[in-house]
């Protein structure tokens, strides 16, 4: 298992090949944060797309250019499928908005608990 973190996100790459990203409380995601997240993720999975479990619960805002970045080919190159964990009202809005408008390039689904998200990622 490998762990890294910056001032907004904690990254965990487990031995079973799943990358977890957890945002710290009251995170506002900007394009710079999005690109940084993509760079760290890519390094941790050694530039090979792996399943990603991304917990958006603590995100309170995500800028438009950041949403675009997360829907881009650059970011999609880091994961094979993505489970977005949305347990707070705001994260639900961000998740739904992301799926509805930004149309991610790889399979992406929303979950309200991690276990279900992990189950889907392991399928």
């Amino acid at each position, binding site marked *: 298992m490998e762990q890294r973190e910056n001032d907004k996100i904690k990254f965990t790459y487990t031995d079973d090949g799943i990358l977890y990203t957890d945002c710290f409380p*009251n995170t506002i995601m900007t394009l710079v944060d999005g690109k940084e997240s993509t760079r760290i993720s890519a390094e941790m999975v050694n530039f090979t797309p792996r399943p990603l479990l991304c917990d958006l619960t603590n995100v*309170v*805002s995500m800028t*438009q250019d950041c*949403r675009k970045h997360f829907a881009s080919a650059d970011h999609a190159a880091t994961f094979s499928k993505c489970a977005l964990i949305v347990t*707070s*009202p*705001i994260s*639900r*809005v*961000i998740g739904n*908005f992301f799926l509805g*408008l930004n149309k991610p390039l790889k399979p992406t689904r929303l979950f309200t608990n991690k276990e279900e998200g992990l189950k889907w990622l392991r399928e």
Partner: protein
Amino acid sequence: MSDLDNDKRLNEILEMIGRVAALDFSRMLPVSSKNDMIDAIALGLNMLSEELNANVVERSKLDSINTKLEKFAYTTAHDLRSPLNSITGLVTLLELTVNPEKNSEVDNYISKLKTTTEQMKSLVQGILEYSKVNVGSVLMEDIDLNNLVKTVIDTDELKERAVIKIFDPLPSVCFNKSAMDQIIRNLLSNAMKYSDKKVCEIIVKGEEVDGRYQIAVTDNGPGIAPEHQDKIFELFNKVESEVKADSHGIGLATVRSILNAFGERIWVKSILGEGATFYFTIKKRR
């Protein structure tokens, strides 16, 4: 948080909805650290406003580019008319001067030169007609479609090239006369141009559907494949020129452009090999 606070937040949301509806995207709602449903709605509205703003900006940029392109097309086509007319005159002079033997090599070249020049003139005319579509200050008048269709048939001597039937009296409509003339002329000549039958048959019908007139022009031609039924209305589409070499793919684009400019629409229904029916709508007179 008290009911009073929530009322204030909900009022801000209602005001924001009003602003967005009026295409004012300058306001962003405050999102508190409560992370409750009202915050979620406020954030969602903020994001929607951002996306709508980006779309509106993009759309107005495209509109501006389109307007410039149309003006450019009009100016270019307009300026090309004069040298093209000169070429036509010069080719005739050349023919008279050289007086080539019939079917000789020179005669063939001159004949090809004439045909090519005529094709270019027709293309330029088509672009001019397409670019002229503008409803800014056009005269709307009462038009008896029966008379208009009959006039087009007589003026263009269409009876010699097709059997055209008008089913039931067509309605009288309020429209710009030269625009309606162009629509009917384009649709009838289109049906004849692509006809693959010994006798080209065309039926023109009108009926009232959902409070609007719906005019249908049906032909017994080759029909249009489903995958081409939208493309034929695009400017310079290749579908028309693939079927008919001398087609520039302008006629139907012009018809659609006119109708869209008046808030009307056109579409086609067709089964390949069984002809086609072009429908367009016209608002009823009040």
